[in-house]
């Protein structure tokens, strides 16, 4: 006989005036290789069809299913029930706006972030469809990709002390994004340009160095290194700006 799992799931439907935030209990029999993806879908299909949660690729690639699993932000798709105790508590990610139950609005948050950091290559070169591609060192390409592996699940933001205190802090995912363009030889922005975006308390100087972002990152991105790298760069840029005055 397999375990009977007890799920405590946060319930609230903001579109229903009768709805009050509360925890609801569901019981499910564990099966082999059960993930939270399988468990939550079974609960919805067999027990409560109104239960809201987000999954998309269910393969750890798209970042849809970030939630707080027994107190820790993580991706539900690659969390196996066998690694959890018999009682499992699921809460929506904090910081992001709640859509309902376990579903939050990460899309709007990240779209604002792209706009704030101007998350695209800034160049005055025109594309010439008749020419060979511009050459690039493979090492640069690999380094850029290492930072671009972020799936925007929002776990790092939800685990961030500063983001929980102030809602204008751009967070590790955004700083990682800036680092990605800073090391890209195709982007012509100067360090001064980046300073305008992140050289303040909403940016790199707001980070308290608690480093939970890296602890919870499901893609194991080197977020600590990026924060250190940007802090040094922007610190030096800051000094240069003072002396220029």
């Amino acid at each position, binding site marked *: 006989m397999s375990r009977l799992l007890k799920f405590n799931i946060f319930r609230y439907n903001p579109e*229903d005036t009768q709805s009050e935030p509360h925890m609801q209990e569901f019981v499910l029999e564990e099966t*082999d*290789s059960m993930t939270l993806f*399988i468990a939550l879908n079974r609960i919805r299909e067999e027990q409560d*069809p109104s239960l809201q949660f987000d999954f998309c*690729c269910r393969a750890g690639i798209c970042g849809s299913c970030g939630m707080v699993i027994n107190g820790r932000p993580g991706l539900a798709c690659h969390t196996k029930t066998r690694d959890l105790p018999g009682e499992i508590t699921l809460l929506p990610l904090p910081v992001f706006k709640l859509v309902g139950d376990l579903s939050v609005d990460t899309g709007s948050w990240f779209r604002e972030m792209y706009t704030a950091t101007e998350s695209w290559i800034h160049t005055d070169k025109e*594309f010439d469809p008749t020419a060979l591609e511009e050459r690039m060192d*493979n090492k640069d390409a690999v380094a850029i990709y290492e930072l671009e592996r972020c799936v925007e699940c929002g776990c790092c933001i939800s685990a961030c002390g500063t983001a929980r205190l102030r809602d204008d802090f751009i967070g590790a995912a955004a700083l990682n994004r800036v680092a990605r363009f800073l090391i890209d030889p195709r982007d012509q922005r100067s360090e001064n340009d980046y300073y305008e975006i992140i050289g303040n308390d909403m940016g790199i100087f707001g980070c308290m160095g608690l480093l939970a972002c890296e602890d919870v990152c499901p893609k194991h991105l080197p977020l600590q290194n990026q924060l250190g790298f940007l802090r040094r760069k922007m610190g030096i840029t800051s000094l240069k700006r003072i002396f220029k005055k």
Partner: protein
Amino acid sequence: MQTIYTDFLVVGAGLAGERAAVQAADAGFSAICLSLVPARRSHSSAAQGGMQASLGNSVMGEGDCPDVHFADTVKGSDWGCDQEVARLFADTAPIEMRRLAHWGVPWNRVVPGKSIYYKGGKQFEKVEAEDKEGLIMARSFGGTAKWRTCYTSDGTGHAVMCTMDNRCAEKGVEVHDKTEAIALIQDGETCFGVVARCLRTGELRVYLSKATMIAAGGFGRIYPNTTNAVICDGGAHTMCLNTGVVPMGNMEAVQFHPTGIVPTDILVTEGCRGDGGTLLDVNEKRFMHEYEPDKAELASRDVVSRWMTHHMREGHGVKSPYGEHLWLDIRHLGEEHITGKLREVYEICTSFLGVDPIHQLIPVRPTQHYSMGGVRTNKDGAAYGLKGLFAAGEAACWDMHGFNRLGGNSLAETVVAGGIIGRKIAEYLEGSETEFKTSLINDEVRKQQSRIDALVNCTNGSENVYKVRKAMQDALHKGANIFRNQQGLEACVAELQEALIRSKNVGLRSDGKGVNPELASALKLEGQVKMALMVAYGALQRTESRGSHNREDFTARNDRDWLNRTLAYWKNTDDTLPTLEYEPATEVVEIPPGDRGYGKSEIISADTPKGKGKKGK
């Protein structure tokens, strides 16, 4: 009711949709993409392998050119593709890859000098040329004559999707995520936009546009086991077939992949078998070499999938709570190889299964993977039947894939087709004027609202949406899978017709308030069953085997009678079967039908007189 106007509306915010939107925005038009999820979560981002384009930079790609790429694509399609489209694709792909590099994709680049690579488990050496240093590198893929697949480590789709979405942000293309289009606004001649449901509040919203594009990916979720994301449910296709005038092309052409893991159907790469992994049955015995003495596990995707299914049918499958499966064994490759060359496979097994492939067997089964069929368009991406409606990417039957798609060609298709069709749409927007009739819009909104009310109030019955969906999926799984025959397909069609009746009687168990996921599933269910019928009924009528469509009772590819494309219509809402029409597979013939050079070669040639059924080579 909120009404939003835009010049160009895209249903879907994956690579094809965003690429077309960028093209329209570059021409000065406003563009909005609707998406079920934030753009970067689109299924495009899950593609790992790469994009085919004949740049010929790698030493193993030397001599490659669009002609060779074109020939591979036509052969791959088993001569089911539109050759004019395949030509357009092969010629444009290199330019699009370079454009992506300019926009910010971190393509892996050529590193000059010696390096080693593996083929069939054996080690070889190659030397990359000095003068190619820093140009876009390519890797090897199945079914191609040259190394042609451009890639970014093992996350090509993700990297290109990031760049494309950045480009959208820069160009002011809006992405309205958590928004689901549920019906086209159209008068039987022209498409004017969609009625959509907001997945933040549950409210209905109207989007009006001069041009509308369907770029919502595949519809694998009508099968029970699929590698597709949960959003690939065919919802956007169902809007099109509900018009009665827009046909779906080649719906019976469905690709299966041999090694989806059980239970979640996530793919493990063909590289496992390429590097020497073996398939085992319930007794942990190898079996592929008995069916295919030469190639064994290394036969092509469709062939391996077929034999695996056959072997399970013979009673050699492993029983599990998630259905029968077989084992993939890579233990003998050793820890160093598995955690090095097959790192991704190692991570999938440990993260999703809790299986350590160094010491344990991996549960696998053939799994639905790609939909060659979709909204039928002409070579400009314009949908048949409605002016102002376009389609691109996996959602479309543009038709460069015919009856079998080559790996790496679909991801490339998204941006290449998105670019080509985006330009055509910009021309269309330039030259057209539209008038919106408010009565038409109001009627459609009212119709959708009453559908929702009926589901919430159980006006038509109280069938359980998930149970009907399961009945549909099980019917397809049994009857329209890797092997097909008349008896199985007839039974499948009958079961689906029963499911169709039940789908009309669905009522919600929950209250339907707000976002309500049960309502979202219920709204598309009837359309999904109709799509399933298009797959099964189209397969029943097609009495030949071509590409992924494999009839046990008609094993030859029959160019004499079936060198054509199925067009499936749902002409009246109350019909119980689709109406099938046919058109020639290709008007332009650069390469006449012949032997593909792999797989089986039984062909009834186009020159064979009726009644002879001569078997060619």
